[in-house]
């Protein structure tokens, strides 16, 4: 169990810090350093993640392999790409179910899981998912953050691309908290972002199902 058996592949360094915090804050103990429940590799982007995913299926030292990827602008195409990556080993559903994918790989007696951020269906990314975990109490602030981000880009020449709107939103919102400018994983730790939010529940359930955690 743990480092030897369980691996999670994520696209970036942020994800590598966010996922353990998310899981732990949701009440699943991550374990002490060196004895974590899951080893996480960050791959620096989707292409490299897909490459390593395929190779890790041959890892004799693993029982459970998960990937967390961003759906980005075309969830269907991302789903097809992942299915094609592991087609030689097992059949992934072309359209992932809302609860995420957990499938057995019969040939190598492994379990394989896929979660597509934010919710296996919508366009978006890790930050889209995290935006949904902000407390709804101050709705006018949430609305103001969104409009400020849009105005900054449309009127004042802010350089971020439209595609990264959700990233700009969460970092702007974090800039206006007390203390300002927490990093994403830290914001979860400080409960500025709520890991027990119903929106996060399917992800946590997927994670526990894949790694067979109590």
């Amino acid at each position: 169990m743990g480092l030897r058996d369980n691996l999670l592949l994520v696209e970036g360094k942020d994800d590598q810090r966010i996922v353990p915090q998310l899981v732990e804050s949701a009440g699943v103990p991550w374990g002490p350093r060196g004895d974590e429940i899951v080893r996480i590799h960050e791959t620096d982007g989707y292409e490299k993640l897909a490459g390593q995913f395929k190779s890790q299926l041959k890892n004799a030292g693993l029982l459970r392999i998960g990937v967390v990827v961003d759906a980005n602008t075309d969830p269907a195409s991302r789903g097809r790409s992942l299915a094609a990556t592991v087609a030689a080993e097992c059949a992934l559903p072309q359209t992932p179910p809302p609860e995420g994918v957990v499938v057995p790989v019969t040939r190598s007696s492994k379990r394989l899981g896929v979660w597509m951020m934010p919710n296996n269906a919508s366009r978006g990314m890790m930050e889209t998912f995290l935006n949904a975990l902000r407390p709804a109490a101050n709705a006018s602030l949430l609305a103001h953050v969104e409009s400020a981000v849009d105005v900054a880009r449309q009127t004042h020449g802010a350089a971020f691309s439209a595609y990264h709107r959700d990233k700009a939103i969460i970092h702007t919102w974090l800039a206006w908290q007390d203390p300002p400018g927490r990093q994403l994983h830290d914001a979860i730790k400080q409960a500025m972002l709520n890991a027990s939010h119903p929106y996060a529940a399917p992800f946590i359930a997927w994670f526990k199902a894949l790694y067979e955690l109590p």
Partner: protein
Amino acid sequence: MIRELKIENFRAFRELHLTGLGRVNLLVGENNSGKTSVLEAIAFLASGGDPTALYTSLSRRGEQAIVEGPARESGDDAVDVRHLFFGRRIGDDTALRIHALDASGATVDFHLSTPRVPDDGLPDWRDAIAQRPRRRAGRIVSRVIEIDRSDRVPRYLRIGSPGTEAIDVALLPNGGLTSDNATLTGFDLEKPVAFVTTSGIGDDELAGFYEKIVVTSEEQNVVAALKEVESSIARIATRAVDPFDHRGFVVGLEGASEPVPLGSLGDGVHRMLAIALSLVTARGGYLLVDEIDTGLHHTVMRKMWKLVYETAKRLDVSVFATTHSYDCVHALAAITRPDVRTAGDVSLIRVERGKAEGIPFSEEEISRLDEWQIEAR
């Protein structure tokens, strides 16, 4: 160069399919997964279907048969061919098959079966095959067939290859293949094969290899290989070690006036010498090494792979080796290119008990085993 190998009904394998093979191939897998059997299958292929190769591999494992009947008087040894067949069973429908596909698309294909000696046709059959050694497809067929009076069914060993006439070799009633019958077929090896077992190669045989390359350009390369393990080695020579003219090695060390026996330098030097000399002996053919890491310290493993790879390329040798060693597997990255994702020059294959497909790792994957923390074994 073999790209694909398919083995059916051979030893531990009901079926085994290996793809992505290259110039240097390392086989990993648990004990009894059949790694050594793969080496034996390749030795048999390389022999061109020579029953001597079968005899040798059975004998190497100590799979002897009791010699019965008149053959006993000849003082001949025999091996039990049943061990070659999956489940150790031979019968009318049992055949094993070894099939290889090379880079050019050419195939080599051998079938082995043990047909029953026909009841009624026996005297004629015996006349035709047993009493008169004769050539078939350019090969001599063995001559002694022992007919058992008991209820055991007399069988013979048939080695066939599509497009050529089969060779039939007599068996003892208990399935024994005598060394006399195995060698009667008069094969010339189609390709040289050097098989280095876990216990290595005896000094006497190694000395014979060495004497063939003394004062050729390969001698320098062999000494250079030894220096990778023990840098103080200046030169080596063979000499008689006993009154029966058995040969052994002495080593001249830098700055020492007296030679020392090779044995005093440890297992690593001996292993490296066996690998380096076997590579030269296998020129144009196959080097098969069981547990290639034996005796080698983990710090020499990368150098060993470089030596094997460079020599194999220079001398056109295909290398198949096995290991259980983590360091040996990971050191393979010393000769792989991280950009090669399909079949390349170097391959790593895991053989799993009971699984029909070997699991191949590309050069890219071998290069990244450390980074990705992949356990290949």
